[in-house]
């Protein structure tokens, strides 16, 4: 069997993941519904005062996004691991980092991008002032890929464990902290009309860093899980 070129393999993996995602639409919706429910709990818990909600909005939305992202990460490699597809991918001769990157990109497109698209609604619910909304969308657009990239390392490490979900959150939440700090401070700064490009720039550099390094760590973790 001849080996496919890297871009062909990448595209094939993406196509396969989209098809799989489309066939399991209900499963895809779960993290998003989870996100909406978590956001709904906050006004009920802290009171519906618009001013208070506006104050905590960036943090609440971002934390809910972190939770939703971890929820979907547990299943990122699991079904492939269980039915042996993952082993075949390792044996395919393609770079494992490339495979990991393709899976991560697909994960972001089906689990991260919907959060970005939902964020205006969430901002409205949490009464976030209008000045903050575009920055919230931008911060999520830059930040959610990083969540997928870092989370994939945790997903790959815990894939061979029967109950990896809780462990996964313990592993990746500490790594998400810089992102959470930068994103919420950018949105809060935008609300009071302070400059926020610095924070977004740092987040972007984080995205580039994660894009270059994380697939290799994910590949190493996958190899380890299959050993």
């Amino acid at each position: 069997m001849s080996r496919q070129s890297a871009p062909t393999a990448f595209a094939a993996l993406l196509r396969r993941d989209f098809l799989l995602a489309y066939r399991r639409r209900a499963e895809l919706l779960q993290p998003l519904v989870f996100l909406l429910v978590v956001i709904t709990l906050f006004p009920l818990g802290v009171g519906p005062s618009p001013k208070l909600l506006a104050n905590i909005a960036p943090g609440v939305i971002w934390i809910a996004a972190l939770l939703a992202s971890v929820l979907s990460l547990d299943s990122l490699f699991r079904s492939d691991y269980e039915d042996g597809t993952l082993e075949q991918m390792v044996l395919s001769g393609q770079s494992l980092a490339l495979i990991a990157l393709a899976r991560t990109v697909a994960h972001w497109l089906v689990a991260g991008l919907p959060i970005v698209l939902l964020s205006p609604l969430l901002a409205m619910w949490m009464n976030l002032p209008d000045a903050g909304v575009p920055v919230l969308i931008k911060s999520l657009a830059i930040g959610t890929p990083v969540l997928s990239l870092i989370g994939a390392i945790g997903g790959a490490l815990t894939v061979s464990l029967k109950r990896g979900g809780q462990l996964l959150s313990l592993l990746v939440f500490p790594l998400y902290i810089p992102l959470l700090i930068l994103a919420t401070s950018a949105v809060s700064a935008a609300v009071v009309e302070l400059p926020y490009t610095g924070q977004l720039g740092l987040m972007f550099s984080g995205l580039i860093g994660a894009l270059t390094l994380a697939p290799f760590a994910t590949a190493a973790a996958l190899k380890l899980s299959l050993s």
Partner: protein
Amino acid sequence: MNPIVLFFHKTGSPPWFYRFSGYLIPWLWAIFIVLTAIGLYLGLFRAPADYQQGETVRIMYLHVPTAWMSMLIYGMMAVMGFIALVWRIRIMEVLVVASAPIGAAFTIIALITGSLWGRPMWGTYWVWDARLTSELVLLFLYFGVIALYNAFDEPRKAARAASLMSIVGAINLPIIYFSVEWWNTLHQGSSFGSKGSGIHPDMLWPLLIMATATKFYYGANLLSRARLILLKQDNRKRWVQELLAKENS
């Protein structure tokens, strides 16, 4: 064979490591006890009280060395984890795993002594200050490594997963540190810098002695734990059986 290469091959062999560390451990414990006794005596009785902080400054002799150790051990774990994954040296995997509980313990001591120090100085046990927060995050990273190790049934796979996790955590640690620092700072800055320290010799010496003592403690505890893990992993191998036979005879 080149003596250095030979040394690495020897340390990589569990029976040799077991014997070698057996000779080393009593010395490490002895030096640790002597240094701690001197350091605590100098720090608690001889060093002057601070002109601003009064007697409470003495917490420093426990707080600062343990906080240093908490960071150093994580760094060590990442370096050893890298060696373990790249050259597949089993002793290194064991050392990473053995380091994690010690590092976590140092982190907890640093957090507790810090909050006891914070009460009289800042008027509160806990603030979401940069250094406190990053120390707490470091503790969670330790817990993550320990939990990951315990989650696997197969000890070697578990150790390799823990090694990889410590490397990933170590890359993120400076980023977490700087982001948290930028987020909020109340903690006093470090008194040590490239231009020499701004701390009086009477206070510096007990601090440095305590810092050295904690390193010997780490060495002694690390080797003891590593020996125990090796015995457990190899309990069916010949060298352990021979060892047991010798003990029993």
